[in-house]
């Protein structure tokens, strides 16, 4: 007898206004396999999965689960046919216990305790079956991200999911945690579960999937057996042209130190110490990459250097000490005047005003500089618009229309607007946080080239990224941060992901060597 696909989508189409997010998509996922879906941001992966999970209704097309045609009007229906979803951003109640979170939404009866007792027994069974050990009475906010993700998976299994969809599951994990997740996924596959893995990381696809589908601009461009393809091949299918996966750069020629940080300490509003005796230095013509799992002090370091977070310690730029009190002499505009440019980690929250037009954003932070003023009172809006048009062409922002509102650009183009603004100031020191987060491969290539080009002009660059690949390929020197401390510095040529991963997890240097 022929095996029926666990999930089959036929001719799925969906559009939002004039934008067609999914065009006539057909895909078959066989039971007991891990199927990867890869594509750039905006390629339509999330829309497709949202249709499968009942968040959106397709304009056209059919869905089959285990060979039966069904309709999925809402997520309850998806759960009903055994589909479970683990979102990129977990949907857990922070101050509930693990058990309460698992039961939430699946309680039976008016009283809670019978449901909880039943869940406790089932959880124990699931834990032994899939080797997913968790403490049912732990409070969510007390446990790590990897563990929280495990609870999301358990939530789906508790609801009898046979098909698990994971949306960018490794974004918040250390390499070790990611390995652990992959072990769990393999175990689930052995038990006959079907897994759909949405990701933009080629390495994950190669490591763990059996089959892979590539999406580009709302269309399914190919479905392949993973072992018959290569990362280069997949990248080309995603972007539609050949892309350079390695960053093309010559060895650094570092000169004098531009940024020197000595004993930097910072406490947040709740009195928690976020930076602990940080010592770093970045020289001209050098990229210092700071690796680490999100939330280990990297953001705070950028905020302190960017002039909007108070700290104690000594920070020198080009030999002179800068003000760390965020007063008028040490705020964002003072920093810019001192030759420090900053591409913040979150372009939509900090780097851009999403309701401002591109030209207004292109002077953000520099709007009081003389070159942007027509006279003592007014800004020179016409000149800024002209200038912006040039910048947009030089940084290949599409569409190059200065009057378009920031929110109407794609992620990669928004990032290019920020980069154009900061790099074209020709700063002595560039702070860059997550330069390629949520940016498509084609744009990543371009952004990396721009950062390397600035280095080659003899500028100092402090790079912060949670993507280890990015740190390894861009940096001339790597520092690892964990819990607000610098765990150690390494040269990219003399280290590897495993060693960095251990440092990122806070394992002491001796253990790493």
């Amino acid at each position, binding site marked *: 007898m022929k095996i029926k696909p666990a999930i089959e989508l036929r001719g799925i189409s969906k559009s*939002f*206004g*004039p*934008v067609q997010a999914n065009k006539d998509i057909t895909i078959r996922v066989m039971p007991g396999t891990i199927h990867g879906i890869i594509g750039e941001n905006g390629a339509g992966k999330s829309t497709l999965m949202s249709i499968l999970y009942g968040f959106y209704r397709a304009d056209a097309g059919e869905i089959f689960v285990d060979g039966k045609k069904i309709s999925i009007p809402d997520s309850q229906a998806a759960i009903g046919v055994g589909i479970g979803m683990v979102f990129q951003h977990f949907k857990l109640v922070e101050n509930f216990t693990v058990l309460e979170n698992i039961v939430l939404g699946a309680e039976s009866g008016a009283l809670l305790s019978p449901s909880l007792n039943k869940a406790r027994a089932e959880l124990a069974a699931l834990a032994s079956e899939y080797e997913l050990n968790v403490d049912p009475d732990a409070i969510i906010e007390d446990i790590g991200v990897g563990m929280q993700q495990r609870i999301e998976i358990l939530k789906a299994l508790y609801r009898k999911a046979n098909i698990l969809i994971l949306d960018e599951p490794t974004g918040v994990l250390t390499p070790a945690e990611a390995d652990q997740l992959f072990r769990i996924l393999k175990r689930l596959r052995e038990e006959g579960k079907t897994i759909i893995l949405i990701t933009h990381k080629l390495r994950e696809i190669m490591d763990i999937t059996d089959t892979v589908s590539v999406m580009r601009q709302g269309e399914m461009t190919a479905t392949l057996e993973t072992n018959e393809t290569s990362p280069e091949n997949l990248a080309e299918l995603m972007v539609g042209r050949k892309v350079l996966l390695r960053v093309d750069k010559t060895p650094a020629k570092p000169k004098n130190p531009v940024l020197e940080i000595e004993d930097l300490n910072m406490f947040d509003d709740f009195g928690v110490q976020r930076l602990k005796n940080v010592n770093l230095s970045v020289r001209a013509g050098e990229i210092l990459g700071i690796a680490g799992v999100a939330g280990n002090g990297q953001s705070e370091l950028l905020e302190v250097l*960017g*002039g*909007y977070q108070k700290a104690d310690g000594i920070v020198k730029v080009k030999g002179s000490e800068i003000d760390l009190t965020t007063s*008028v002499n040490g*705020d*964002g*505009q*003072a*920093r*810019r005047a001192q030759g420090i440019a*900053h591409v*913040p980690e*979150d372009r939509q*929250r*900090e*780097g*851009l*005003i*999403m*309701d*401002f037009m591109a030209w*207004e954003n292109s002077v*953000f*932070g520099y*709007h*009081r500089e003389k070159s942007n*003023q027509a006279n003592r*009172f*007014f*800004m020179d*809006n016409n000149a800024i618009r002209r200038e912006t048009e040039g910048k947009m062409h030089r940084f290949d922002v599409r569409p190059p229309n200065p009057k378009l509102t920031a929110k109407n650009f794609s992620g990669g183009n928004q990032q290019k607007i920020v980069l154009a603004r900061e790099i074209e100031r020709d700063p002595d020191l560039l702070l860059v946080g997550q330069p390629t987060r949520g940016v498509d491969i084609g744009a990543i290539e371009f952004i990396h080239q721009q950062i390397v080009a600035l280095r080659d002009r003899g500028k100092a660059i402090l790079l912060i990224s949670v993507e280890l690949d990015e740190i390894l390929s861009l940096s001339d020197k790597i520092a690892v941060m964990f819990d607000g401390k610098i765990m150690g510095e390494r040269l990219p040529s003399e280290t590897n992901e495993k060693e960095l991963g251990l440092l990122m997890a806070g394992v002491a240097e001796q253990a790493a060597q």
Partner: protein
Amino acid sequence: MDVMPKWVDIIVVPLFSLFLAAALSALLILAIGESPIAALNLMIEGTLFRSAGWGYMLYYTTNFIFTGLAVSVAFHAALFNIGGEGQAMIGGLGVALVCLFIPWPHWTLAIVGASIGAALFGMIWAGLPAYLQAKRGSHIVITTIMFNFIAAGVLNFFLVDVLKPAGSMDPASANFPASTHLPTFQDIAGIIGFEKAFRSAPANVSFFIALFACLATWYLIWRTPLGYEIRALGKSGPAARYAGVRPVKIIMIAMMISGALCGMMAINTTQGESERLILNFTEGAGFIGIAVALMGRSHPVGVLLAALLFGFLYQGGAELALWTKIPRELIVVIQALVILFTGALSLMVRAPLERFFMSIQRARV
């Protein structure tokens, strides 16, 4: 995803809201046995086709321009200034002190002095809640509305205990000297022999100051680095912090400009119309300013148009109360409906209109 055309947002949405308010008002008028058509006719005739009507309408409009602009400036910084009423009252106190205690040789100088006094007093009155918001995090909505009550108390105290002329029973200041009296539109039209155009109506030269304030506000918000920072902070606090925009400073400045504009309303009412300081001269204009700013989408041109509309409603409403059996209270209800639909409920109107225009757009693709 694309959005609906801009003109729909700017023109169709407010007009449709207005239409809904008018329709509901018409039903109300029908319900009490009057003819809505006749009522509308009366409002139009009494406002636009009678010489005094014009003058009254523009008098109210002047107030609403000032308070509407004030609320708009605060809106751009994402601050909801509902203390316009109190700021105008204190502004009135500023006008009275300037007009009573400084001997002005001519009204042209007096109006400059009174403007400065009004703006300064309004600015201080808005500055206090602004400071509490910026430094202590006390919510501006709560503090400004409480400051309205304090302002009423302060005004009362000054009128009863300080400014009331000896022997008078009326809680009002003495009349301002004649050299501070502002020319009304009737006086101005009289110069070219058209005094009939604005018969005995209170509209006066402060209307031109209001128009100038529209222009100045436009330049401030869209042309100066300060306006840029106000808008940036209003749109995104974290981004403003990143760019080195100082929130405390911007909150203070935006609110003080807002308070100054509210205060300047008193040039019209106190120096221009009553020519002395009286109780309750603001007549709710501070609150109408919120509706004007919402309907005018915080843009000076929109504010001017909305202020004209509300001037019309105020004057038209007075006509209705005078000539029909429609009770005075119902007119307040009608005005409230317009505020409700154009201000608070504009989003309710917007969503279905947006869907409608999007579906047209999609059909065309």
